[in-house]
């Protein structure tokens, strides 16, 4: 369009054009055209985020002490409120137990890179970027990166498999607010990748994770084990209005079927200990307790509600839930999250392509 306007202007102002000028204009027009055609689509992966080294520069009460990132991150989620001081301290310690930082951002970036590679392989000119809600790169940084990469439009991809207002809606709201702030400096948001809790690639990747964790097991041991899928607990008022629990139960049932495991259960993890209301249940501890009562020796736990092994998986399952299982004399085997399993990435690529249509 820019090239055509340019051409029109010269025609009006220049009167008769020499063939040399005309050729130059046509070449310039084509070049502009080519550059328009090569503008890419942007895919913004929206996620929770985790603390990485460096100040978040948004917490007024930041202690500015070495290693304070985890505290600022947790306070940023729960709110800088004296009433939650004990909980902030408790969760911050989980991060410090694991070195003070979270691998979430790096692992999600790997998923973004793998998705871009897969779409490029399919002949799609796309650029992916991550935008997080609770740590940098924030959604606004991700949109800015897509703009700087020359993207003409943005598709949002929520990196959470199950929908509730505290994930799905909040992520979209966060991205939309970021786009509002950036104005013309953000490629317009034109679509959202539709939810994929039952998509084959995700189910297959979930099952692959369980298979990897149980390599070397006899079929008898695998069949006899209790298979538990977990997701983050959500508060009852949010669960009431969302399909979160239903979607998660469907994911778990499909993954168990894919594995040929006759029995499975769902459980919820990481509910705040200071909350006085009902959150999604049963908890992972209750599910392990039930397995114990059933005489199980093994429990296999796969965090299907999470996509990467970050702190809530590494601490709440590998440390807390494992300690609980140990006390009961049960062996807890934790299967990794789906990460950048090719089946999962291919499924995301399919969904992105649908959204781009």
């Amino acid at each position, binding site marked *: 369009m820019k090239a055509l306007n340019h051409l029109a202007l010269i025609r009006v102002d220049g009167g008769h054009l020499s063939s040399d000028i005309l050729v130059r204009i046509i070449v310039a027009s084509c070049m502009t055209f080519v550059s328009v055609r090569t503008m890419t689509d942007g895919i913004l992966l929206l996620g929770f985020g985790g603390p990485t080294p460096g100040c978040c520069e948004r917490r007024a009460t930041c202690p500015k002490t070495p290693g304070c990132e985890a505290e600022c991150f947790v306070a940023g989620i729960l709110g800088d409120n004296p*009433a939650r001081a004990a909980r902030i301290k408790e969760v911050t310690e989980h991060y410090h137990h694991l070195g003070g930082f979270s691998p979430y951002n790096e692992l999600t970036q790997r998923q973004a890179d793998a998705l871009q590679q897969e779409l490029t392989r399919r002949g799609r000119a796309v650029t992916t970027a991550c935008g997080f809600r609770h740590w940098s790169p924030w959604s606004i940084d991700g949109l800015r990166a897509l703009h700087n990469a020359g993207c003409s439009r943005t598709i949002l991809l929520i990196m959470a498999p199950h929908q509730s207002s505290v994930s799905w809606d909040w992520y979209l709201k966060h991205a939309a607010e970021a786009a509002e702030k950036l104005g013309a400096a953000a490629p317009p948001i034109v679509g959202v990748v539709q939810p994929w809790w039952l998509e084959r690639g995700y189910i297959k990747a979930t099952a692959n994770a369980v298979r990897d964790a149980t390599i070397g097991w006899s079929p008898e041991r695998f069949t006899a084990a209790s298979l538990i899928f977990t997701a983050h607990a959500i508060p009852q008022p949010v669960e009431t209005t969302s399909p979160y629990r239903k979607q998660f139960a469907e994911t778990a049932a499909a993954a168990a079927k894919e594995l040929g495991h006759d029995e499975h259960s769902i459980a919820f993890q990481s509910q705040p200990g200071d909350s006085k209301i009902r959150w999604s249940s049963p908890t992972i501890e209750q599910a392990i307790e039930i397995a114990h009562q059933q005489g199980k020796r093994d429990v296999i736990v796969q965090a299907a509600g999470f996509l990467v092994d970050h702190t809530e998986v590494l601490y709440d399952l590998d440390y807390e839930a494992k300690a609980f299982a140990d006390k009961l004399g049960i062996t807890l085997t934790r299967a990794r999250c789906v990460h950048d399993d090719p089946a999962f990435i291919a499924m995301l690529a399919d969904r992105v392509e649908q959204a781009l249509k």
Partner: protein
Amino acid sequence: MTVVSATDFLRDLHHEVANHAGIGHSLLGRMELDPKRRDDFKIFSSQHYPLVGTFTRYLELLLLNAPSSEAKVWLAKVLVDEYGERSEGQDHAAHYRIFMRACGWQDTEIDHVRLHPAVTTFIAEHLRLCTEEPFLVGLGAVGPGHEWAIPTMFENILRGLRQAGFAENEIEYFTLHTLQDVDHAAWLEEALAKYANTTEQQEQIRRGCLLSLAARERLWWGIADKINAGRMQARMPWANSATSGSEQIELTNKEFRSGIHFSVQIPAVTRA
């Protein structure tokens, strides 16, 4: 078993209230990190308003249940204030509607707002506590559960409101209410000190307080649910909300109000 003195009991209860997740909900604590706008508060106000309009009803019902004239006097003092004694004759609901208009609501729209189930269950729970439970359970709910909690919660809300650009005259409900509740808390504390002398009495007061605060925690989650969904949809009307379909379980303000009934039940004679 040694009975804790009323003073010590109230001190411990103050601590418990101050550290409750209902008081320190992330919706309130994140006002600076996640600044709210007028439109966010429009949704907030529509869900909070029914509570404002019903608080006096809790006290009126509890008054009927009060065991002595002395207790009635304490409650009546609070009630007179709630009716508008120190607010130029405007009761709290009328004050709140000034704020709602500043948020962008027309008076005629308010009745048709769909209420999150956490809002309606909050009110239902308090009506129950003030009528079906022993008097001290109800007093625990409206006293420590409300009057001790509100100044802290409103302090956070006020921070968010000022940041969103509301003028002081638009948010007078919150400033005035915060000041009045400091007085109400002191008056009710006098009553509590008088009644919190046995283990049973203390348990009843604490139970009412904690049930109220748990309802409050659910309420903030419900309001956050509404804000996230509503604001997302306002910006992206073409995207599906995770809460779509939930309106089937939600009553409008008017439906909820017209559904509240009180009845008198007379016990059947069972004497042999």
